[in-house]
């Protein structure tokens, strides 16, 4: 019996020839992502237990991002704990303020993500890195502590669901619309404990940035990981970003690999989507929700704060002004600089938007862009749970950067295609 790409990576990480869904394995970890919310606790746990060591200071990537720059004393203290530890343990890949960025945009950009590897992080959206044909998944602080100390972690091998993305995206429809459609179809627990493998011709025309938007939201369907196979697009990105270009292994799903389910999506027929509160599965086609008034637009986050996203927003906003509070957050300093060099900030400024430094800030109701009771926000983030961006009585609507930009201009949900 053949194996899926997820099974092959996990088998290799455990030094096994074969694994099957349900098997418990001890995986060797290739890369650990650490940020300011879940890592300080992991560091304290290790100290408390007297196992205060780091398995490999080159395989840990640290960046404060959730409350960065520190929004208050408590956040500053979290950052200090992270900073003290990263320096004491001589962590090679440490990105403090100035270099710090939204982790899931930063790691691939800085060349830390390689195909075939097992990557974990104390953040549920760690599944993003699956776009690079890697196994990546989110964990809590205790698992993080264990992995930091030992470089291994146990996993139950997940069964896989195959999503075949047929056809081609039409103008104004983006990978964000694809994943919102998928989650609307299967629900927020439709892929509970499972690997979500994305294949199909529609991926060919999607950049790595666009693919990361899809794998980023695998957790919003309950998935353990999201994964996309290696191709020329992957290779090109890696050639441009990896420091050590040949040191990775490419795994592919076998033709006779077993899938629990296969779901076909005709991407040619997809429309721009908006996920209504309070679940990411609340996706509706824009035609069914046009006209709903918004109070704020938020464009950024690990889902859609990349340069490609900002270019789309700039294209729509050029020569226009926004009707509602609009916050734009480039996800990393490199993206920020790129956007500035490309004069996108001039467009955002003229349109009446505010641009911030890279941060997770408002996406999780942390700071900078918090919603008051009764307010509605059109957001390019990944989650619209109750109270996600502020008051439990506020509402978050998830959409693509194009839909968010167009809606910001009119102050209500609109079809972005009229601006393209």
């Amino acid at each position, binding site marked *: 019996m053949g194996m899926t790409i997820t099974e092959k990576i996990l088998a290799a990480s455990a030094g096994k020839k074969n694994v099957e869904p349900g098997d418990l394995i001890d995986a060797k970890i290739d890369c650990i992502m650490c940020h300011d919310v879940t890592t300080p606790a992991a560091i304290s746990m290790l100290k408390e237990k007297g196992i205060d060591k780091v398995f490999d200071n080159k395989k840990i990537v640290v960046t404060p991002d959730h409350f960065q720059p520190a929004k208050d004393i*408590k956040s500053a203290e979290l950052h200090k704990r992270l900073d003290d530890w990263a320096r004491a343990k001589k962590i090679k890949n440490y990105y403090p303020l100035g270099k710090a960025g939204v982790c899931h945009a930063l790691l691939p950009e800085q060349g830390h993500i390689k195909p075939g590897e097992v990557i974990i992080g104390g953040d549920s959206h760690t599944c993003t890195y699956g776009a690079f044909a890697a196994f990546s998944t*989110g964990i*809590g602080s*205790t*698992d993080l502590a264990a992995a930091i100390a*030992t470089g291994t972690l146990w996993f139950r091998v997940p069964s896989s669901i195959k999503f075949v993305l047929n056809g081609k995206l039409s103008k104004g429809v983006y990978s964000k619309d694809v994943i919102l459609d998928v989650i609307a179809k299967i629900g927020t627990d439709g892929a*509970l404990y499972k690997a979500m493998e994305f294949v199909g011709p529609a991926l060919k025309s999607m950049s790595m940035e666009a693919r990361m938007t899809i794998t980023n939201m695998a957790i919003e369907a309950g998935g353990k990981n999201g994964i996309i196979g290696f191709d020329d697009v992957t290779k090109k990105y890696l050639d441009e970003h990896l420091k050590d270009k040949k040191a990775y292994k490419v795994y592919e799903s076998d033709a006779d690999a077993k899938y629990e389910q296969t779901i076909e999506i005709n991407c040619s027929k997809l429309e721009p989507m908006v996920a209504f509160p309070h679940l990411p599965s609340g996706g509706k086609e824009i035609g069914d929700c046009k006209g709903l008034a918004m109070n704020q637009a938020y464009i950024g986050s690990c889902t859609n704060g990349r340069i490609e996203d900002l270019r789309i927003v700039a294209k729509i906003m050029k020569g226009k002004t926004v009707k509602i509070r609009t916050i734009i957050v480039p996800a990393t300093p490199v993206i920020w600089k790129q956007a500035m060099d490309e004069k996108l900030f001039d467009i955002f400024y003229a349109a009446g938007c505010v641009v911030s430094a890279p941060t997770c800030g408002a996406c999780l109701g942390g700071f900078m862009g918090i919603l008051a009771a009764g307010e509605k926000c059109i957001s390019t983030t990944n989650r619209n749970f*109750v109270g996600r961006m502020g008051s439990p009585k506020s509402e978050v609507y998830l959409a693509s950067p194009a839909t968010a930009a167009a809606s910001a201009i009119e102050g209500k949900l609109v079809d972005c295609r009229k601006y393209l």
Partner: protein
Amino acid sequence: MAKAHVYKRDHINTDEIIPARYLNTDNVAELATHCMEDLDTGFIKKCKPGDCIVAGDDFGCGSSREHAVWALQGAKVGAVIANNFARIFYRNCINCGFYPIELTDATSKIKDGDEVEIDYKKGVITNKTQKKEITFKPLPDFAIEIINDGGLLEHIKKGTAD
């Protein structure tokens, strides 16, 4: 005696269990004061040590924040009984030595305010109010071992010491 607090809801998520606005600390006592705040502001007042939460599908979906489990533990919640759990939350529970109990149709078998007693090892919930015994599939052995060792880190430490 443990009282059941029943929420007939699916997808009770980590933002509802502990809102992200409080994640600028990992102090358990502080997190506990905000436990379940965005779902039920009265929860902390009515929850007594050992009480359990009963809910529908996909409990704990969302963030990887272990703070959700710490908030429940800090609020002295004894266990969460749900139809099923989100993967990361379930794993975090075991790592922290906290019991996630999977029970089909949980909210129809246990009513709000019912007095319950849980035998984790045997997989039996005695519903004293309804005078009924409800069986559930106990956690797998390796998970029980981790919980009995006092969580994953103690478990690892023990392994290293051996």
